[in-house]
């Protein structure tokens, strides 16, 4: 029994350490955003609460922060929606329709997810320039949709394969076409899984940086990660209070989503990564 109690203590200590590790930097970020001066840890300085940095980030027009937010939400939303809509029929086909080469498709798609983004971005840049789409939402939505497709396909395949065949077989017998069966039967049953997929797709698109840096040029289409990355360069004094305020504001939606849908996200990631 002593061994078990010792393990219990270890577990508690470990859990505390893990929490500090995971939340520490985030808490530090929020504190700096709310602190009157960024060096509040230095001896002699103190912590004085202020909302000035948040106001500065939201109100200063030239920083364009609310616009970055809007752009991020629009681009991520569209990308997630398109990605799931395109992956769902494909997942249906892979799990239900006996077409030769479906396993190959799955593996090919998996291999695609391992391509480095930098190997795509230059040609995408040329393509988007030629179409005149640089610095428009299309420049980001299309590559993001493609980029998230492997993940969406794998997760949806995993969810769809758990939906019992009898359900849609019954629908097919009743005279439904496969597309109708997908829409009317599978989707409602697998709705939680589809939601998880869309959520993950949204988070991935929201956090992306490289494409955003090269395919957008100003606040009209730039997303938040690019905005934060370019928030004042290295020469001279970085306004840490304002930077951390921007970071905190950015983090709020994703953290909220994570906290609320924590179980779904874990389920989706697990299904997508650990193949059956």
């Amino acid at each position, binding site marked *: 029994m002593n061994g078990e109690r010792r393990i219990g203590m270890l577990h508690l200590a470990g859990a505390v350490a893990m929490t500090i590790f*995971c939340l520490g*930097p985030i808490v530090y970020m929020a504190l700096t955003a709310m602190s009157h001066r960024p060096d509040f840890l230095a001896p002699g300085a103190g912590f004085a609460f202020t909302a000035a940095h948040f106001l500065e980030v939201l109100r200063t027009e030239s920083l364009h922060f609310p616009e970055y937010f809007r752009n991020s939400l629009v681009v991520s939303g569209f990308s997630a929606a398109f990605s799931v809509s395109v992956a769902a029929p494909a997942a249906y086909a892979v799990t239900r329709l006996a077409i030769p080469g479906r396993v190959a498709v799955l*593996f090919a798609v998996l291999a*695609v997810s391992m391509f*480095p983004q930098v190997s*795509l971005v*230059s040609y995408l840049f040329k393509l988007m320039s030629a179409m005149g789409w640089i610095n428009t939402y299309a420049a980001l939505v299309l590559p993001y949709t493609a980029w998230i497709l492997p993940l969406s396909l794998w997760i949806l395949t995993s969810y769809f394969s758990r939906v019992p065949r009898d359900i849609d077989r019954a629908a097919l017998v009743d005279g439904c076409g496969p597309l109708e069966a997908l829409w009317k039967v599978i989707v409602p049953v697998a709705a939680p899984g589809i939601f998880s997929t869309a959520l993950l797709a949204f988070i991935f698109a929201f956090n992306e940086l490289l494409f955003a840096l090269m395919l957008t040029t100003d606040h009209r289409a730039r997303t938040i990660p690019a905005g934060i990355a370019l928030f004042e360069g290295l020469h001279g004094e970085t306004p840490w209070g304002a930077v951390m305020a921007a970071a905190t504001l950015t983090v709020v939606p994703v953290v909220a989503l994570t906290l609320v849908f924590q179980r779904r996200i874990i389920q989706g990631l697990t299904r997508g990564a650990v193949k059956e």
Partner: protein
Amino acid sequence: MGEDRSFRDLLRGYSFIAPLVAILLAFVFVPVVGTCIDSLYREVTFLPRAFIGLGNYQSLASDPGFRQSLRFTVLFVLASVPLELVLGLSFALLLHRPSPARGALRACVLIPWAVPAAVSGKVFELICNFQYGLANYLVQRIGLTDGPVNWLGSTGGAFFALVAGDVWKTAPFVAILFLAGLSAIPEDLYRQAAVDRAGPVQRFARITLPLLRPVFVVALLFRTIDALRVFDLVFVLTRGGPGGSTTSLSLYGYDAFTGGDFGYGSAVSVVLFLIAFTLSVAYVRIGRFGRELS
């Protein structure tokens, strides 16, 4: 009549996959092929485009900057991936054990993963700030050093900061993978081992670790490839500095593109792509092999 239907079914099946394939072709395959072709050209903004065959690759081979970024990328992978795996496994073990706070703990652990790398890069940049960052505060408080450490001003310090930032952000993802693996291990095995008087360490070594092997392989390969193509963290935290010593291959290619040399940048991307592609092929092979084994 039957053949007709099956051909139509086949067509319909393919039509379900068609949009996916089309999008991937247009926005992934074609760009990669296009980049490979571009790498054979001298393409700079101030000169006309000219075919130079392997010229860019020859320049790469004798370019100390490229060698430096290759070296950094490999070292980065070697340093961060093992740490992530170990830390991820530890987190998974902590999260697996039933406790009232399990849901809250899982949410906590997910947060670093959910935060954009651009944001975590900025936060770590502040943590490593020479004058008033958290790192120097802690390190001096604990008494590890006499004076403040110039993290981002030295190659070693910047490397350490990058590894720390990457491990912080990705250990959760690894933890989730291991968690799924742990959940798949049947309880009976542990019960049997308890009956056999096996201690916790023995249970871990004899049951847990071997059964986690497939997950371990998945995690290892995902993380290795992700670490190879690291960009966000390096761009934000160190900008590849000091003196270009923490420039990853992705950043090196990106700098070439934004500097106006598309041919050279394409060559760098192709090299990175080949490395990642080789590893992913290896993964598929190992995956198949593993499946045959079990």
